[in-house]
């Protein structure tokens, strides 16, 4: 039996009276590149925050590789092999690029809270950090303080931090947001390269990126997934078109 990488079962989230996620069911098989799209305010980022335990769910169940992670904390989920990036760049601003990435590999190499080992002597951590920095194309910025990198460089570092620990389920929240056309092209190539053989789930607004990268796409509208399928199926779906055109959606396009 093939256990899915990530499975959401009837997941709901409300903030006070406001229902943001209203019974989402989603199965992402291992090795799939899955994109979540939808209009602004549909709850895409919230869904990510639930899946990565940034927020607790109101009800429902989330399993990672067959194991329930519904009640875990972010660091616990990360240790089980799920890693995420953020829509707004979320890095260690006062540390160098190298330190940023090295901090992200330490736990996965089992160094934990060690205060008796020298960082400089951790060969595997240093080598892995250098490999990741090479992969994200920031080798020449290795010693630069992360806070003064350019926007595109910070976005690349954000992805580097996310993948450095070797997690096999990667969640990317709008990885190309705010990028120019050429920067977006580079970012897509980078994402393709570093998520090779992993499960990738991404929220993305840029449809060319979505249709380029994704194996399957889910469309989230008003906290519900109205369609899931291959890019071709999604393109052809009447419900999706309706949702995106937004004309008669309020009357119900669930069917």
């Amino acid at each position: 039996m093939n256990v899915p990488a990530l499975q959401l079962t009837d997941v709901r989230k409300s903030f006070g009276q406001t229902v943001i996620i209203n019974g989402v069911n989603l199965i992402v098989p291992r090795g799939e590149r899955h994109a979540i799209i939808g209009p602004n305010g549909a709850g895409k980022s919230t869904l990510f925050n639930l899946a990565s335990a940034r927020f607790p769910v109101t009800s429902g169940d989330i399993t990672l590789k067959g194991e329930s992670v519904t009640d875990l904390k972010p660091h616990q989920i990360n240790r089980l092999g799920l890693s995420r990036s953020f829509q707004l760049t979320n890095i260690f601003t006062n540390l160098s690029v190298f330190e940023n990435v090295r901090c992200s590999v330490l736990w996965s190499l089992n160094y934990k809270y060690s205060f008796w080992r020298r960082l400089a002597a951790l060969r595997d951590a240093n080598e892995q950090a250098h490999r990741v920095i090479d992969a994200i194309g920031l080798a020449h910025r290795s010693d630069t303080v992360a806070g003064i990198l350019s926007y595109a460089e910070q976005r690349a570092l954000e992805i580097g931090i996310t993948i450095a620990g070797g997690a096999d389920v990667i969640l990317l929240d709008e990885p190309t947001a705010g990028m120019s056309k050429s920067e977006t092209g580079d970012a897509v190539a980078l994402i393709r390269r570093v998520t090779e053989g992993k499960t990738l789930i991404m929220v993305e607004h840029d449809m060319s990126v979505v249709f380029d990268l994704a194996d399957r796409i889910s469309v989230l509208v008003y906290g519900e997934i109205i369609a899931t399928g291959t890019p071709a199926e999604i393109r052809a779906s009447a419900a999706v078109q309706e949702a995106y055109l937004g004309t008669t959606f309020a009357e119900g396009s669930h069917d």
Partner: protein
Amino acid sequence: MSALVPPLLSRRRFFLWGALALLMIVLPLVFDKGYALSLMCQISIMIIFSLSYNMLLGQTGLLSFGHAAYFGIGAFATIHALNFVGKAAALPVSILPLVGGLAGLLGGVLFGYVSTKRAGTTFAMISLGIGELMASASLMFPVVFGGEAGVSGNRVIGKAVFGVNFGPQIQIYYLIAAWTFLCILAMYALTQTPLGRMANAVRDNPERAQFVGYDPQWVRFMMMILAGFFAGIAGGLSALNYEMVTAESLGGWTSGVVLMMAFVGGIGFFYGPIIGAVLISLLAIAVAGVTKAWLFYFGLFFLTMVLYAPGGIASLLAMHKRLWNAGLLLMVMPAYARVTIPLLLTFAGLVSLVEMAYQQAEVLETPLLVFGASIDVNSLAPWLIALALTAFGLVLLKLSWPRVSEAWRQVLAGINGEVAR
């Protein structure tokens, strides 16, 4: 990209540590007067204490208003251990500071877990509460804390070993110096470990630290325990040094002084608090020796640093070292020369005002001397002169300061251009 593991101490580091050790050994031979020795003992203790404080503030981003609690716990534990050892001779006096360290560590375990859930304001408030709690507990349990008189002890126990019984101040100095050297080394080493680095990561961005597998609370908790350990050692050394511990050692004043030392020295640099501890200790002695208003000047100095040099002395040094390395230090000197006179005028005006105000308030018998001149504070003229001096100085400063900024702008542009090429 090198797979080689760098040596434990690079040649440069080795020289730096060697120089520090040598300095600590030679200093008491040069300044061998009694008060100089006791001042050096006190400075050494404050170096450990302020470095331990900076493990929280600078390295982990935890602003504590109650760090004296751990210093005090260590001090009281050590003085009681000393008195116990005096009867039972179970431990040599030289390792008693370790008892203080362990007590401080236990304090960290006890108070750390509740207070490290969050950083920021919550942590600061809880630390203040814990500090006050300890301070008031010290007056409630006179058996442990000795009430207002404190607890005293005698560090000279048993026979001298190779002529060492820690009676003379010079012997206790070398004991303190050895502990200080070890503690600085250990605290520096900690910054080079996974925990040390993750403390920086948690300081910068606790949320991101969570998403790379670390529990920020646990990182803060461990740093707090270790900081408590070193603060406890500092307290233990102070107990041996003064052979006396009072409630003051765990009160708000001590917590405030250590904050000030770390901040003035520079919390962004490992060695910053060392500079702060030395500078503030020396200033306290020097300024308190000439004026009653020394605390006022301390406040003024602290305010000035917070407003105009928040990176502390260490960051000022680092900025100028950058210019020195680029061979451009001379370029800012003309601008510095221009602000020197306005600075001195402002300083003279302010000092005159403060001294006259103190004279007025205290009605001292002796006539007031400001910069050697005798002044009658009951006439109007000196007040007007001092006010005018201050105002004039401030205006000139306002006018001449842009030159300093401009000189720095140019020099930095020069350096960055160099780098870009």
